[in-house]
């Protein structure tokens, strides 16, 4: 039985109510954050919080309550609340909790932050930016250490403990030169330690250099269907969007996913393999247990263009009579190709290098449109100039089918591992 006293108390309270099934997740978290505003460390913030989530199932009805107080009276009140919600819930045979699995503990990262090293690292970053890129404004940034201790137990005897300590960093920046300013850009990544300079992690230095170039932009003055060379930064977002509209519980239960009957079918270029690898040694910001009570495993979603798995949780799988995914998604990895980024640029006759996309949520059929931000015009195999006021429109599924090349280089963001990807058939229109 779990060592967490609060969870034990809660289990006893729920057992007294003769409920058929229940699951308890307690997440105790401690965060230390150094916030940078306008190029200076402005705030040191330390927080602690608890989230206790109680899910109960009785007579095929289900309800959940979340609280952040764990004294006896709060636990009793939460029990009362979940029973009230259960009473008015709906009958659904698909409600369930995970079956018995051997108790396990998972540990990653350290328990406490090194505040001095955090201060030094971020001070060094601010100093380097001022010295090397004086036209750059750090609008907003934070270096955070987050320690979480998650205990998941259920009435089938599941008992998982996951402890994780992880550093993460994000920065939002714009360049300024006289009255000229560039379009803002940002980078976020996670790391196990503070060994590497922030400026040399993920794509940060490249995006800063580009942002200064983007002080002078030109709109594209025509409309054409062309190539799009997607950077690792935007590819991470694109894959998450693809998963949301095509593979998630919501899209599959609603029946709006065009991929609902596509397992085993070719849905993308054979060059494309997408994985969700929360347990990979290359993904420091992964996870070991799913919120519905299973040990998470690495999962191949698309292999050589063929759809292998949806991302259905326990409920979604039962509801749609399809296979439950062995994890909860995220931690996406796109396998590298065999061509260098430089050679990919050479293959572009006419198109854009898409670094960031500001657009509406895509339609369920994959249609999207929006602005190409922090991006470049490419013609005759050469990056020509930074662009502004350029809109793009296309279809996510068509983009994945039309892949021409994937780069051999990958960028590790800590929570995703992404290459560059060249596709075509996207409408690009300027003013």
């Amino acid at each position: 039985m779990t060592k967490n006293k609060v969870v034990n108390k809660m289990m006893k309270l729920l057992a007294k109510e003769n409920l058929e099934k229940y699951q308890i997740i307690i997440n105790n978290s401690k965060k230390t954050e150094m916030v940078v505003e306008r190029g200076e460390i402005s705030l040191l913030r330390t927080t602690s919080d608890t989230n206790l989530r109680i899910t109960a199932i009785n007579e095929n009805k289900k309800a959940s309550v979340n609280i952040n107080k764990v004294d006896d009276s709060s636990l009793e009140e939460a029990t009362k609340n979940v029973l009230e919600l259960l009473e008015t819930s709906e009958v659904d045979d698909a409600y369930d909790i995970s079956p018995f699995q051997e108790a396990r503990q998972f540990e990653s990262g350290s328990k406490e932050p090194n505040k001095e090293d955090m201060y030094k690292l971020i001070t060094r970053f601010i100093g380097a930016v001022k010295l090397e890129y004086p036209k750059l404004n750090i609008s907003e940034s934070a270096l955070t250490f987050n320690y979480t201790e998650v205990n998941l137990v259920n009435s089938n005897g599941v008992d998982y403990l996951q402890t994780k300590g992880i550093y993460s960093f994000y920065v939002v920046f714009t360049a300024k030169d006289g009255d000229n300013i560039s379009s803002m850009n940002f980078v976020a990544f996670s790391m196990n330690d503070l060994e590497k300079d922030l400026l040399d992690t993920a794509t940060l230095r490249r995006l800063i250099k580009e942002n200064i170039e983007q002080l002078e932009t030109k709109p594209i003055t025509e409309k054409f269907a062309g190539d799009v060379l997607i950077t690792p930064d935007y590819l991470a977002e694109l894959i998450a969007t693809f998963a949301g509209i095509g593979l998630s519980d919501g899209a599959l239960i609603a029946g709006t996913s065009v991929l609902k009957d596509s397992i085993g079918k070719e849905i993308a270029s054979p060059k494309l393999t997408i994985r969700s690898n929360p347990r990979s040694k290359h993904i420091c910001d992964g996870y070991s247990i799913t919120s519905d009570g299973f040990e998470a495993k690495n999962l191949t979603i698309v292999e050589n263009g063929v759809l292998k798995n949806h991302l259905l949780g326990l409920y979604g799988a039962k509801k749609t009579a399809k296979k439950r995914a062995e994890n909860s998604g995220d931690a996406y990895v796109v396998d590298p190709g065999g061509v260098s980024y430089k050679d990919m640029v050479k293959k572009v006759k006419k198109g854009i290098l898409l670094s960031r996309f500001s657009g509406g949520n895509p339609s369920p059929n994959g249609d999207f449109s929006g602005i190409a931000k922090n991006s470049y015009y490419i013609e005759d195999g050469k990056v020509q100039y930074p662009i502004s006021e350029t809109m793009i429109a296309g279809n996510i599924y068509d983009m994945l089918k039309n892949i021409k090349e994937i780069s051999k280089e990958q960028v590790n963001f800590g929570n995703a591992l992404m290459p560059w990807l060249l596709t075509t058939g996207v409408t690009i229109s300027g003013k």
Partner: protein
Amino acid sequence: MIQLSKFSKHFTNYTELRVQENQSMNITFLNGNLVGNEKKYTSGVSSRVFLNGSWGFASNPEMNDVNIIDTIKFANENAEFLSGRQSKNNKIYEGAAFSHSHNLGTKKNRISQKELMDFVKGIDAYIVKKFADVTSRTVGLNFLGMEKTLLTSVGSNRYSLWPRTMIFVKLGVEENGEPINAYEIFGGRGHFEDLFTNPSDLFEDIDKLYEHLKNKSKGVYASAGEKEVILDADLAGILAHEAIGHTTEADIVLGGSIAANYVNKEVSSHLITLTDYAHSYKGNLCPTPIFVDDEGTKAEDVVIIKDGVLKEFMHNKETAATFKTIAKGNARAYQYFDEPLVRMRNTAIEPGKSKLRDMIASIEDGYYFMKTGNGQADSTSEFMFAVTIGYEIKNGKLARGIRDTTIAGLAFDVLKSVTMVSDDMVWGSWGMCGKKQMIPVGMGGPAIKCRINVGGK
């Protein structure tokens, strides 16, 4: 309500002490399946301290006396950690002490969980019965309540309770095997009891949503390029918030926003006046009324653009001191463990004198954009909004519906192109703005006629 005054003796520097509880509830039916049925309660205490130009912040979910005193102590230690390592000359605008209490909770008897569930089921049943060709549907009820008690070392006191309840309806049909969606949100500030009586009160609006969805499914893709358009209130509101509002938040201005160069300059058509209202518009409470902010500053309206000229930015105590001006109550925090940031409250373009029908009649070839999905903006004022419901305008009349599209432009350029502003005013009460933390916001406006870039095939 916790009495915080006894802790003021522990304030050794400029200090804010806040106790807060957020409550939320969600009931969601997806195709008749109950996929969301839960409540969440998050509460705790936080303290923020300013010392020699640096801030320290600490929070704790447990709110006994010992923990509250420790939280103040840890916030001081955090401020000392930074101020001991860096020399800064930042000042803050202290302002005058101000005390205010407002409780926007219902005075009616609370209805039961069963009645709430039955209300949502009633809407779902209506959709199933009325619209045979709807292939997907989501009907949900979302509640968010924020209760805050604040004491500052300046002497400001605040108690506030703000509830918001929304009913969400999303319908989908298939056209040639392709799924097409549209959605509508009902409700706003207040508990359920003050906003809803019977599911049938919403049926007429759900019928309209279905009609728009059918027109969209039979509709066309917008044609890409710069077009003459009418942005209805929903889009004018998000334009005010995303594209102008964010560029005039003083922290964004200091971070490099283009608006830094525009004070007292003409930035839009003279038809445009744009204000971030603190709590009231023409004597009526706004969607997210703020009387005292989370730094203890008395909240007042901020007139951002007056008759086309950029007038002032939105501030917290620190940016107000940097700009040598006063703060007007824009510092807001979402959860007890969040620090206050410069945030909008209720941002709106003021109505003009034109009639919407005349505005539509004045366009030969363009679009009428009615509903938006999401929006983003840049420090350059370049913005993008999704359009989820819209129509072509041909020869002064509404024509075919359009599929999902995106509109974009440089906000100040778009506002310079405004030639007509309608005489009506519609507030959107469902806004949730993301900027490090989430925060509920109100946004509103009339319909405006302007030129804008349309993304299409």
